[in-house]
């Protein structure tokens, strides 16, 4: 929205007479530009002059979606004309291709500074994707692929500047999907992307975007490579090793969410959709006990991290599901941890009361 994180500036009552007049002049200029573009579209005058006017307006206001639509109408018309010229044998196919490529490149170049200035503006990202998709349609697979390759470089740069940019990560997934597609003679990039998340996590452990992307990629890799039970278990072991290393910061919720994700391998209610669904009952119990010991060790240095108690409780509850119930001792432990959670995490005391209630009901 227009005003996320906008600090206070001079209000209109405080504007000087000159400032007010200047603003009124700006409004007039802006409005006449809007009118000229609208008239151009009504007259179906999809000329280079009209394109220049849309450029001028979008630089002032990249959120004006109707103007992006006008821009696309102009380009679509130019592409149509080129195709017609080829059909009428007034133009060679390779000349058409190079002209299409020029148009696309020129506009990608126009968008670049806008993207840097307004990285959260949906319409700019949309327009870029539209242009690139035109490339896929009108160019040879090789020519189109080069455009998408450059786009991957661009989005990597953006994610280096802001490693949690939501649009950036989403856009990256779209670009990768295109580079993998048959229309561009692509093949799977899952392993490369998995390594990319390792790199991003290495730079900043609390990058939840990277952990999320990783969780999706792992399932994709295992399916693409037809991984058997042993390979799946290997992947799980590697992920556990990584998260254990990361959890030297036991206060970071991104890490604990990922840990919970791995724990879903052992929970009979969720394991079917997890990365290693073929674990035996005995293996699951062994894993859960190992995790519990790992978390217990963390308590010494992080007795005030609520996540530790929550993880311990999860371990024990899953173990209870696997072995047919909680021992009296474990039950007592769970109650102690729940009390600890209520104390450390008062904002969510309603949740902990619900959990307590459910366990009591189950035990009775």
């Amino acid at each position, binding site marked *: 929205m227009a*005003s996320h*994180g906008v600090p206070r500036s001079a209000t209109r009552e405080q504007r000087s007479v000159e400032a007010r007049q200047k603003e009124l002049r700006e409004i007039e200029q802006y409005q006449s530009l809007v009118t000229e573009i609208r008239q151009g579209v009504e007259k179906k005058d999809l000329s280079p002059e009209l394109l220049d006017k849309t450029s001028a307006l979008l630089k002032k206001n990249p959120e004006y979606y109707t103007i992006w639509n006008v821009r696309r109408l102009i380009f679509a018309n130019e592409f149509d004309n080129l195709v017609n010229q080829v059909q009428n044998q007034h133009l060679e196919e390779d000349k058409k291709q190079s002209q299409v490529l020029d148009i696309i490149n020129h506009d990608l170049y126009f968008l670049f500074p806008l993207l840097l200035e307004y990285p959260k503006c949906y319409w700019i990202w949309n327009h870029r994707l539209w242009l690139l998709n035109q490339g896929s349609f009108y160019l040879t697979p090789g020519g189109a692929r080069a455009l998408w390759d450059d786009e991957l470089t661009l989005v990597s740069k953006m994610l280096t500047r802001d490693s949690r940019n939501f649009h950036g990560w989403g856009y990256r997934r779209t670009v990768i999907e295109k580079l993998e597609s048959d229309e561009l003679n692509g093949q799977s990039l899952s392993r490369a992307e998995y390594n990319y998340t390792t790199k991003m996590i290495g730079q900043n452990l609390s990058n939840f975007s990277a952990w*999320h992307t990783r969780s999706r990629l792992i399932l994709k890799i295992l399916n693409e490579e037809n991984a058997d039970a042993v390979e799946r278990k290997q992947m799980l072991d590697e992920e556990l090793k990584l998260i254990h290393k990361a959890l030297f910061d036991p206060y970071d919720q991104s890490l604990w969410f990922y840990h919970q994700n791995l724990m879903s391998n052992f929970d009979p209610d969720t394991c079917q959709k997890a990365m290693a669904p073929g674990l035996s009952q005995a293996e699951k119990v062994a894993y859960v006990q190992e995790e519990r010991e790992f978390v217990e060790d963390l308590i010494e240095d992080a007795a005030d991290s609520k996540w530790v108690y929550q993880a311990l409780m999860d371990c024990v509850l899953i173990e209870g599901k696997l072995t047919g119930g909680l021992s009296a001792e474990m039950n007592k432990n769970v109650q102690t941890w729940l009390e600890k959670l209520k104390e450390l995490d008062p904002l969510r005391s309603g949740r902990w009361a619900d959990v307590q209630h459910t366990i009591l009901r189950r035990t009775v």
Partner: protein
Amino acid sequence: MSLVSGPGRGGTHNQDALPDQLKLAVDQHVRYIRNLDTRKDELQYWLTEHLRLNGVYWGLTALHLLGHPEGLPRDATIKFVLDCHNIDGGFGAAPGHDSHMLYTVSAVQILATVDALPELESSKYGGKAKVADFIANLQDRESGTFAGDEWGEQDTRFLYCAFNALSILNMMDRIDVDKAVAYVKACENFDGSYGRIPGAESHSGQVFTCVGALAIARRLDLVSQDRLAAWLSERQLPNGGLNGRPEKLEDVCYSWWVLTGLSIIGKLHWIDKSKLSNFILRCQDTEHGGMSDRPGNMVDVFHTCFGVAGLSLLGYPGLRKVNPMYCMPDDVVQKLPYWHK
């Protein structure tokens, strides 16, 4: 309806108030919203024209929840909505702007709120059947999801908008609901929350749209309720406000997206409601009116709407009850024929 931010600033006039002294400045907010359209001498008024119809919806909804439905003149509101209607059956952000799902849903919501849906039939571009056609044509029949307009960007936001508008028009039979529902399910992540498209990271805005869509389709059985509620409740920060995803700052609008998800699955008590209430109240400018995203920033009508809606959902006294699926007055939703089937 201007979407210019300011002139007020959230928290300016109640910074030192103790929690039990914080009160909703109803009259000031009403005045603030009523005066928004008198700001045409500001460049920002024109630079935000692409949001105008959304702005009318935000202002109108806030006024209705504040108990001042007369705050915006009914006839002029209806006329403005119909002036945004286009030949393709959809609505643009303002007269002369292209049709888009985001404005089409606002148009339908506004007309329903002022009890004027039959007025659609008087539009020169056709009645509600034409509007429903515009929406239904944006469904991708293969995947089940929706695009925002003819240019094709897909997002579960648009799927939600389609469900919202078509259920208000009682024309859900125009689309493949089952396919759309399966698509929403595919957007669920390991944390129980949802993304824009399958594979995308969880975001509380998408919880509002995905859980809202499932609720409208009466398919809440598909939600991993405990897992989702756990993730949503972790959005609350020690200052009482809620954020959109892990490690981000609190914000009044995210507070609404998270709150609706919790409310729809019956887990509102998994966060500290009075702390959230106080956070929202601290975002108001009690003198000039309006609310901001967080204390200290400029107010705007968007955050004013979602702040008031959040307080209503939290049961703040004196407010008209809001419906969490639609962000509209609950009695308006209860009267819709779709909910009497």
